[in-house]
Each structure stands twice: as structure tokens, then as C-alpha cells.
């Protein structure tokens, strides 16, 4: 830890001196801002705090989640709390699980230059270009798998020179994979039927009105089968 050490950052160009061990998010708050946009789960799960920065003297433009990146001296930061990406609407029950679906809804994927800028801009280190390419080939399983950890921050879409919105394609692929490739799970369907038929009704009803002492005893002596 950098106990007591301060660094200089530039929040949308404005100079701020902040403790060196803060995340970008906390540093912006330390500087006096209250987020309305640009903050969400604060734990790397929601993608609300997409940010880009350059360090003074460097040409490199880098992306990060504000809640997951520690400030560095000389960072010039702006948040990109929103990116204009239109999600196409569809009826999930009427789709085909092949490449034609991606091409129908997002034909621009064929414009992919394979430049890998999306992958380089991803704060989750996802192989974005690889899943876009997999979608073009109609490989739904691979598109779903590679895109799974996407939190939809939008940085890939903002940097893509072919103007593709990769995370919309990943979302479509994952739904296709689950619904059509994997399909429903049999033992889940079976249990739903059993519940509907009332198989557990009497047992549950009994527990609901059970004397607390008997219920407590039943709980304390229940068998654990968790291996």
C-alpha cells in the first residue's frame, strides 16, 4: 500500500490530487463528485463504469472499469457511461440456431476487419474478436463460451472501426446456445411436473403447521447429504 502517497490525475481534464491507492471510481468521489451515471455494482459485475484514459506523455488510449483500476500518476480520465448501441428485438421462440440468425439481426458482423482492437479494449480480457469471428462462422457454442464473462460495458463497441456491437452478438449467441443447442434439462422438467401434480403438497403442509418443538427437532436431526 502507498500509505499517505498522493498522485495527480485529470478528471475530464480537471486536475485533482488524490490518494494513490484509490480506484478511479473512489478517486473521482474523493475529488468531490457524486455519481448519477457511471457507477453501478462497484465490484466488477455490471459494466456501468466504463472509462478511458491516457497517461500524460503517452499516445496510448486505454480502457478500464473505474471500480477495478487503481489510479496512476498523470492519468487523464473520462468515463463513457453510455454507448449508443441498438439491441435488435426478436422472438426467442422463433429463431434458428445457426449463422443466418446473426446475419439477419446483425449483418454488420461481416465487416469485421479482424484487427483485434475489441479484444485489446476489453477490461475483462475477453477474446472479443474471436467470438465475433465464431459468430460469422455460425459457431454458437464457441461464441457463447468466449463471450460468457461479458459485463456489457460497451468499450469494445466504442472502439470497433467496423462499428460492430460485439456484446449484442454475444447475448444473442448465449440465448441460442441455452435454448436450442443445450435445450431444457430433463430432471428440472420432471420436478416441475411433480410439483404441479401435488407430489409434495402434504409433506409441505405438514411442515407449515408443525409444532415448533417438533419442527426444530426435525431440522436439527435432518440428514446431510452434500458430498
Amino acid at each position, binding site marked *: *500500500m502507498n500509505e499517505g502517497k498522493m498522485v495527480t490525475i485529470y478528471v475530464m481534464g480537471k486536475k485533482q490530487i488524490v490518494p494513490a491507492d*484509490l*480506484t478511479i471510481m*473512489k478517486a473521482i*468521489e*474523493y475529488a468531490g463528485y*457524486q*455519481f*448519477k*451515471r457511471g*457507477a*453501478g*455494482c*462497484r*465490484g*466488477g*459485475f*455490471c459494466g*456501468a463504469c466504463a472509462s478511458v484514459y491516457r497517461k500524460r506523455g503517452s499516445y496510448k488510449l486505454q480502457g478500464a472499469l473505474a471500480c*477495478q483500476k*487503481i489510479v496512476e500518476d498523470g492519468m487523464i480520465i473520462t468515463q463513457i457511461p453510455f454507448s449508443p448501441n441498438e*439491441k435488435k*428485438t426478436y*422472438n*426467442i421462440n422463433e429463431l434458428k440456431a445457426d449463422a443466418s440468425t446473426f446475419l439477419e439481426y446483425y449483418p454488420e458482423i461481416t465487416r469485421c476487419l479482424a484487427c483485434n482492437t475489441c479484444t485489446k479494449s476489453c477490461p*475483462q480480457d475477453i477474446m472479443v474478436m474471436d467470438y465475433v469471428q465464431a459468430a460469422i462462422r455460425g459457431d454458437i457454442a464457441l461464441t457463447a463460451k468466449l463471450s*460468457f*464473462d461479458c*459485463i*456489457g460495458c460497451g468499450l469494445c463497441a466504442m472502439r470497433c472501426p467496423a462499428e460492430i456491437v460485439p456484446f449484442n452478438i454475444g*447475448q444473442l449467441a*448465449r*440465448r*441460442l*446456445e*441455452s*435454448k436450442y443447442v*443445450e435445450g431444457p*434439462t*430433463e*430432471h*428440472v*422438467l*420432471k*420436478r*416441475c411436473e411433480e*410439483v404441479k401434480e401435488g407430489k*409434495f403438497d402434504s409433506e*409441505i403442509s405438514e*411442515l*407449515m*403447521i408443525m409444532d*415448533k418443538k417438533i*419442527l426444530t427437532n426435525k*431440522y*436439527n436431526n*435432518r*440428514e446431510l*447429504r*452434500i458430498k
Partner: protein
Amino acid sequence: MSGYPEYMQESITKVVESRARRLSGTGIKPMTAEERQQILEKFHPDWKPNMKRSISIGPSKEMMVPHEVADIIESHSRIKSSEIDLNNVDYDVDVLIIGGGGAGLSAGLIANENGVPADSILLVQKLRLGDANSKMAQGGIQAADREEDSPALHYLDVIGGGHYANKPELVEALVRDAPDVIRWHESLGVMFDKKSDGTMLEIAGGGTSRVRMHSCKDYTGLEMTRVVLDEFINRGIGYIEFTSAVDLIMDSKDQVAGAVLLDMETEEYKVARAKSTVLSTGGFGRLHIQGYATTNHYGATGDGIVMAYRAGAILRDLDSTQYHPTGAAFPEQIVGQLATEKLRGRGAQPVNKNGELFVYHLETRDVEASSYIRECFERDNGVITPTGMHGIWLDTPMIDVINGSGTIEREFAAMYRNFNKFGIDIRKEPMLVFPTLHYQNGGVEINAKTETNIPGLLCAGEVCGGVHGKNRLMGNSQLDIYVFGRRAGKSAADRAKNVTVGKLSLAHLDRYERWLKEANIKTDRKAPLLLPEYRGKKTLEHKLNIL
């Protein structure tokens, strides 16, 4: 290279040295009921004196709640009844949904499926649509769908884990709907983890008697929320982001009939009239009860309990708060963030500074958390961080030893990634953890149809009390939001077909002002808070006072 400071290395070496012994040993047995009660009374934050006071006004007067909750309840409205023109209705809908996490989104979908047109539903969300604790659930969702399991066993686990304080009809709804919630999400296209034979990969959690935790790696909430969100947009259901409700609107028939909305960006107030109003605003983690750091989303400021209470709703079980045993205690940047219970479900043990296992790793959350507090503060067996926090080791490398190399990267992608960003490789080094504020156990009282004591007001998700009693089990909140969100959607649709709205009124706000005056409460506080306050040095605060 180690992500921990030099002075912690000796302790980490002890953890490594004892690992083989702990792996081959029989471990520690679960506590008896008496031992559990003793440790809770002595070490659980809920039992600490002087941390609560009784609510001095309203229908749940005299109920003991944390000071932070009493503060928002004993607050003025952000608006005055005279300032809002109720004759000028900006949005006139059948169903108004306040809060756009899993409960609100699923309520919208099911209301739509039950005959409410998409454009007669309006969901308002003070941040982005889907931004909620729902998205942050890591470990999983419970449902008794295996041969050796049953909803009745699930019921027993829930009510025993909740110390028998749960409302039976809500527990029944929870366990009975659970398999169908999994089926529904799969039919929408959620990718659950499966075994090679195509069955669900399910594990145990603290206090479960069977393996019934379904997961989507450790992004379970993210995956379930984003699919429901995608579907919500596909259906064209109405929503407005960055717009919050600030108070409910009543009508001349003493029904809830909508809400006063605040555009968070333009700061304009708007009037929404509705036949059914669903409150799905989530919990209160960002109130930092007792100064605890929290796992919760930025928006978790307990807005719903305030709005419902002003309208006359009954509250319950708010004396009890869930502290998740394993919040990050190091590094400083992520203090309080969640280390999923699934880590223990997959075999990681809690170990003290001497490398000793000191508690069964799958006690219920309240007992497990209490034992960590005891280990640090009574037995002085915690590791102290550079900023003075105490923590115990969660021996994550055990997971790969037990389940095979690569398990952590495959099943704990989020944990591995998020700790790695701050220099700690959880495949090789343990995590340092300490209990963190996680869940609002209590809230607005509902019945199994999600109805409250006020006609027109339905509630679903963490804003409610009664489902989990005084302690919630892992994987039951991700379940709760969809069980009761879907039920709220159905109830909202049924109601909208049969009611008419009377003349709109905010007289309940004037009544509330009278109550405050009669109770001699003099304060500048206004609620709901909508956003937590972290500006300036507040972002650095840790005022935790454990014993």
C-alpha cells in the same frame, strides 16, 4: 510474487503447511443448536447492544431496527404534498414497477404474459435498467430438482436457517416455485452450469442438507439478469432509466395508485398513475449498518421501505441483518466486496493466522460470520491488515486440489479475475476475508401473492420481509427475486383488470409529518436517500467498531 505484504508471509506459510493435513483430516463437525445460539448471542452484530432503536412512529411502531434504518424511516419526504400537481398525470398505466432488478424485470414480463399490454406497463429505475444486486449474485440459485432432494427438504432448510421466524406461506411459495424458476430461465436462454451427462451441476451451501445450488460460473446473477433484461426489451415493455420514485401516491379509496417520480438528471418531478404498483427496490446495504463495508450495489439505499412505510405498510424482521462471512479484507481497494460462498461449497476452508481450521466451513451465514468475528477479536487469531482491519484466511487453493486443476479459472472466473486485478492469484494464495454487510433480511410484510396490507401495493424481492426469517441461506435471494417478482407480475395483472383508481392524493405525506411532530422528531433528514454519500473524505471512511 505474493500479493500480500512481507509481514503476512509467515502466516501464509502456516496455511500452506497445514493444507495437506486439513485435506486428509475429517475437518470440524457442524455445531450443535446450543453452540450456534451461544455464538450468535455473543458475536453476531445483530446482538450487539446499542446498535438499534425502536421506530417511534407508524404502523410498526416499537419495532427494533438498526439506527441507520430508523434514521431513514424517521425522515421527511423529499417533497411536500402542496408542491405536486396530481391533476397533471405524466404517465397513466395499468402497472407501475419501481426498481429494475430481477424482481422488477420479471414482474414486468409476467404482467405482460397475463394480459397487460407492454405499453400499459412502466418500470422506473434510478440507475440503468438491470443495475441491481440481482446482477451481482455470484454463487447460485437454489432449487430442489434432484431425485434425492425435495421442496419439503428445501422448506426445512430455509425455515431452520431462518430460526423459525419466517412466514410459512412465503417459504412454501419459495420452495414450490423454485424448480419452475429454473425451467423458466432455461426456456428464456440462461446458460446454467451442467455436468457432462447433461444434468445440472449443483453444489451445497451453508445450511443446505442437499446439493441444490445451480450456477452460471460465478456470474450467476449477471447471466440471469441479462437474459431477463434482453427479453424485457424484446417485448417492448415501457421503462425509464435514471428516474426514481420518491413517494407513493394514494387515492380517495385508500389504495396505492402510483408514485411521484424524480428524473435523477433533470431533477423534475413527474406523476405516474397506476392500478397496480409493484415495489421492487431492493435492500439497504449502502446504509452501512454499524459502519460495515458492504457487498451491495451503489443503489441499495433502502428506498422501498421508506416509501411503503409512509403509505402505511407493515414492516417485519428488520431487526435482523445479514453479514456475509467472506467479504474481502485485503487489499484495501476491494474491502467488503463479496467472495462467494460457492468457494466454501467447493471446499475452501476458513483458517486462522496459525493455519488452523476453526469452524465447519458450511455453517449458516450468521453462525459462520460470528465464528470469524470470535476468531479475530476474542481469540486474537486474525491477520491484521496495513489499514488495521482483521481478517481470516479463506484457503482457496484447496479448490483446485480437491476438484482438479483449472476448477478455479473455470467456475470462479469472476473471483479469479477481480482479485487478480489487485495482485492476488487465488489459485495460489488464500484470500483474506472478514464479514461484510450483505442482505436486508426483513422488510415490508407481504402474503404469498405479494400483496401488502395496502390495496394496490405489491412488493417483491429484498424490500420484503418474512421469506428468510432472521437469516437467509445462500442462493435463496436469487430465487426469491424471481419467485416473488413473477408472482407480483401475476397479481398486478389480475388486479389491473378489476379496479378503478379514485382521486389521487398525497395526504399520507401530511399524516406522516404529523406523526413526526407528535413523536417530537426534529430532523433535517430527507428520505429516500436514492444515492449514498461518498464525496470527499467519506470515500475513505471505515468506522467499524466490532465488540
